[in-house]
């Protein structure tokens, strides 16, 4: 069963991120002062507290940092179980929460290489999820 695709509610701080995902691109903010790749997207740097932020297109490549197959849960996510919840470490550095899709939940493991896919939502911008690379 396909996963729910709840629509995020963009703010002025992260609109660019969501505009990009809706065009099947992963763009990330970076601090021009210290070079930090910022996650989650915001228009301040939580390291040096600079506010001069640029955006760049990321590779969409990453590695599974942790993953779990949720088998029981209330509500519509429970109806989509089993599904894989994960943290993926992007090649650009940040670890972001996501789902691993297009895989056998029993086969996916920490350390696996994954690549970004973009899933349209009900009435908003697309979500970034990942599938096994290659």
């Amino acid at each position, binding site marked *: 069963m396909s*996963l*729910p*695709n*709840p629509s*995020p*509610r*963009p*703010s002025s*701080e*992260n609109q660019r991120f*969501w505009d990009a995902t809706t065009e099947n691109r992963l763009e990330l903010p970076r601090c021009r002062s210290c070079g*930090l*790749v*910022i*996650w*989650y*997207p*915001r228009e301040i740097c*939580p*390291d040096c507290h600079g506010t001069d932020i640029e955006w760049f297109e990321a590779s969409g490549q990453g590695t599974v*940092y*942790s*993953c*779990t*197959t*949720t*088998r*029981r*849960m*209330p*509500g519509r*996510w429970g109806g*989509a179980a089993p*599904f894989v*919840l*994960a*943290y993926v470490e992007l090649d650009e*550095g*940040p*670890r*972001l*929460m*996501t*789902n691993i899709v297009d895989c056998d939940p029993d086969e996916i493991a*920490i*350390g696996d290489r994954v690549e970004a896919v973009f899933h349209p*939502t009900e009435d908003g911008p697309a*979500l970034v*999820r990942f599938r096994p690379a290659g």
Partner: protein
Amino acid sequence: MTIRGASLIAGAYEHPGRELPDRTLPQIHFDVAAGALADAGLDWSDVDAYYSAGDAPGFGNLSMADYLGLDLTDVAATETGGSSYLVHIQHAAAAIAAGQVKVALITLAGNPRSGGAAPGGSARAGGAPEAGFENQFGMSVPGGYALAAARHMYEFGTTSEQLAEVKVAASIHASHNPHAFLQDQVTVEEVLASPVISDPLHRLDCCVITDGGGALVMVAPEVAADLDRHCIPVLGTGTAVKHTVNGRIDLTHTGASRSGPLAFAEAGLTPSDIDYVSIYDSFTITVVITLEDLGFCDKGAGGRFVAEGNLRADGGRLPFNTDGGGLCNNHPANRGGMTKVIEAVRQLRGEANPAVQVADCELALAHGTGGSLATRMGSSTVIMGRSL
């Protein structure tokens, strides 16, 4: 200035109910406040400070002060989830040490069991800056803790059998607690045979969902001197916030790795001095990681430490959660910090259930974790003594 010994816990009360469909939330706050004041031998009119968290309805402290008829000259609201009540102790201890407060009341109440709250549900994230980047992927509370458990297993070889021993020890303790929600002893095999909620966590790796609550009364030494009750001095506290660190989250540590050393330093103690621990046990993995972070064993050795039976009151080196903890006894309002402190007070007073009372219990530690190991948390540690 130190808060070491500058304040004492004079009253502690845990609501005996686990399912309270006929009590309103404010009524449960009243029940536990009345219980803690009676335990201390104090009156409502003695209270000059009140501390509450997100479980206080309406306008929090203001609504509750009005409802309870409190006459206050200090209030504080803290919201770090289930650890809030240990943070309250730190704040009350400081206010009492500064001479600003004589009698502080701290309450927790909730009715998630009869109120129909979905297990692990939370609406708090609405409007949070991180919301769109975490809430879209089906992270349940067990799912988040499962991410921490999976990473701990990957890095350190921790096993499901080791995690299960945490539940087994808690269930043995709960079997001696007539108020415990779950009173049956379980085995490692039964934990592993229970349904998987989110790999690698089984249903019996998860805490219970109950109504109820608890309250504490903290007093200045001059107030304690006039009471007939055995008052428990607060020797050290520590609080820390750990978050996702800009996408560099480390799932194998909690804020206890900072709150613990702060509390031990203030108390002038080390982990080997502690006779009894109450460790917030939202899930079995929470206990394993927290024990490591507090220094009771090396990082990564928590699974082996618990599997050796160290947590059991009967013969273990570090008896824990002798009321049965959140895994078996009680988890009112889905917030476990309050009951952790209450059981530590019972142990130091020698009033735990006899089968699980730690002999010559002189020093106890209570630790709360609020929020989620998978994202951001408030960690708070309180060290208490039988006497100064």
